[in-house]
């Protein structure tokens, strides 16, 4: 479900089924979370590139998860919404994180984009707001990234943003000229030329900035949002 490779102090995490993450799969979630946490602990890694092996970084539909892969509420919290869950692990990673996005990016994909330091997009990328069905997606990060009214507009307007608009509003750092993954890796290698302690210190200071802006408080709310999620999509309902 997840491949992890390290080369030249850059870790590459490849997802094979983003829709499973959107559906809160136990196996996919655990694999991604463990990969992110493992990269954080390795001194031979300074930057992480997160990509998808599929044409879509993460499609808007949630996958149908087999019964033995479904989560109950405590597991959902541990894997997706706790301090060591996927999104906080990525947001507070000790390494510089880059998402390389092509095709459609929704739900778990958009939540990962919001949590990563940098996002590179292919020209065909489109970004859907994740908040309707993903209680662990962090709206404060959206407000900080593209500013408050745009985050509200993205959430309530219903339409996805194309890559150019995402670049204009600050959700994307660069639109790739050709191969988005190759350009993301190049950027990661460039960042990895910096000293390990310097990167770690920058990330430590970034954590305090994010928490001062309410990012941690918004993560704290994930369980409460899940409890009030309309319909049967709430993680608790899948127990």
């Amino acid at each position, binding site marked *: 479900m997840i491949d992890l490779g390290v080369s030249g102090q850059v870790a590459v995490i490849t997802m094979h089924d983003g829709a499973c993450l959107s559906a809160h799969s136990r196996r996919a979630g655990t694999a991604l979370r463990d990969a992110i946490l493992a990269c954080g602990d390795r001194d031979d890694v300074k930057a992480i590139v997160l990509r998808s092996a599929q044409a879509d970084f993460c499609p808007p539909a949630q996958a149908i998860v087999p019964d033995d892969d479904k989560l109950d509420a405590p597991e959902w919290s541990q894997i997706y919404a706790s301090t060591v869950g996927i999104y906080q692990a990525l947001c507070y990673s000790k390494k510089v994180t880059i998402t390389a996005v092509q095709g459609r990016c929704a739900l778990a994909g958009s939540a990962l984009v919001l949590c990563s330091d940098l996002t590179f997009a292919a020209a065909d990328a489109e970004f859907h707001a994740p908040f309707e069905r993903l209680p662990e997606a962090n*709206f404060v990060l959206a407000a900080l990234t593209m*500013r408050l*009214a745009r*985050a*509200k507009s993205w959430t*309530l307007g219903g339409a996805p943003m194309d890559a150019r608009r995402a670049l204009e*509003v600050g959700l994307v750092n660069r639109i790739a000229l050709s191969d988005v993954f190759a350009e993301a890796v190049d950027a990661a290698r460039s960042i990895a030329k910096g000293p390990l302690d310097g990167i770690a210190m920058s990330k430590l200071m970034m954590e305090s900035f994010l928490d001062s802006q309410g990012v941690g*408080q918004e993560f704290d709310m994930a369980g409460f949002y899940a409890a009030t999620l*309309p319909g049967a999509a709430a993680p608790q309902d899948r127990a």
Partner: protein
Amino acid sequence: MSAFGNPASRAEAEEQVLFVPDRDSGIAQIVLNRPAKRNALSVPMRERMASLVRACELDAAIKVVLFRGNGPSFCSGNELNEDWGQRTADKRRFTLSDAVRYGTDMTYGRQSFTQAITRCSKITLLEMHGYCAAAAYFMIATHCDLVVAQEDAKIGAIEGRFLGPAGAVSHIHLNRILGVKAARHIGYTAEPVSGREMFEFGLVHKCVGAGADVHQAALEVAAQVAASPAARLRFLKARIKAAEGFVGASMPAMPGLLVSHFLKSEPDELDFWKAVRTGGVGQALNADKTRARAPAGGGKSDD
């Protein structure tokens, strides 16, 4: 309880703020209807707006509250000429306690249409054309969830020309929506910003051409939102409200109101107030452009 407003303004408020609820579509319109004064808001008008927003809150069939204005502008801000009891009759001057009484009611109490908008669980939408200045800018536009604007709308803290930029610059919503440098630039220069520019800054959700039907565009956005199940909208609104609290954007702008009431104009700055008394806020804003762009000190020299 203190009675704000005067008998005339209280009597007129019902006609000056119209209410058009459509339970079939789920869209309620709150329409400013004082076009001769560019919909400048009297104190009773603000009170009625807050009351209507609360009425929408209680109506399960309403999903979207659309604010708009009749006439050439959405709104030029608060009415400046109204004698609504800024000081009680037995006092010779406007005191701090008068200002706090007004400011507190305006910010947190029954006058607080801003809080009524901010706390509304329905989706709030503003249709903007012509002037959207002063209070209309930082107490309505920045608190609505979505804004549909005509590209040549004139938006901003234009009152900064005579009141100073205190509230406009420090308002938390503004800083969160525009970014701190843009908020300060607009506040300190007090120049109007177009609807198109505000789209680029992020305040405006949808911008339509100068000749386009902005009302139709706003209704289309409202209908699109109202097509969603109410539970979905409540959930998203609750998420947004919680996050706004975390980023500090639930704070009202009381200090700006208080500061504004204690500012004293220099003699050569009174032309704005004279123009307001004779021609209303709209004409005063136009007439004031010349003075606002003149060299500091009116071109006088110390030599």
